[in-house]
């Protein structure tokens, strides 16, 4: 049985590799399909203002400034 598994493993790997190749090709074909392109363009158009707003918020952010101790006042009696 173990021998059968060893003999079958390369065939299974070849089949898996073919399936993976086929799947990747299908995914590529779908992504270059006009409908998929339209979907991705719509997603990009929706993302652009959101990313822009986030980028603006990033640039506007300021950390809390460091509070330096005040210098001693001159001419004031303690």
């Amino acid at each position, binding site marked *: *049985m173990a021998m059968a598994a060893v003999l079958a493993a390369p065939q299974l790997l070849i089949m898996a590799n073919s399936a993976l190749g086929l799947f990747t090709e299908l*995914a590529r074909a779908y992504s270059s399909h006009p409908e998929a392109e339209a979907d991705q363009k719509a997603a990009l158009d929706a*993302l*652009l203002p*959101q990313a822009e707003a986030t980028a603006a*918020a990033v640039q506007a952010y300021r950390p809390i400034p460091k509070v330096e101790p005040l210098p001693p006042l001159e001419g004031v009696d303690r």
Partner: protein
Amino acid sequence: MTTRRRASSRLVLIVAALLATACATAGVDPLLATGQALKAAGDEFLNAGRLYDGLYREKKISEPDYDQWRRFVPEFQKAHGTAFTTWKVAVQTKDASGAERAKAIVDELRARVLALVLGVQLPTTAPLAPPGR
């Protein structure tokens, strides 16, 4: 039989993982993926800022720890601004290599924000062990 079943089930798992990876990357436009990563990096930075500011106001982190954040902020803002501009130009010109350049900057930024958030030193509320133990 058991060995064969184990071997084939492992193979199925490996193939499923590979298919999932292929599925996640093959069909996604690099411009879209980079834009999403840019937005995520910005959100993570703003969340980290809220975390650091809150902890600093409550005096739960030290001045040197917050100072580390203060120094990081302009670095992040500069790099994020560059990546955003690069991505926006890449979107306008449909330049996938520009998107990949921006993605490399964003990945680095996200790693640094994560390292800062994970590295924030919080004081422990657990009672100190008595001396001599």
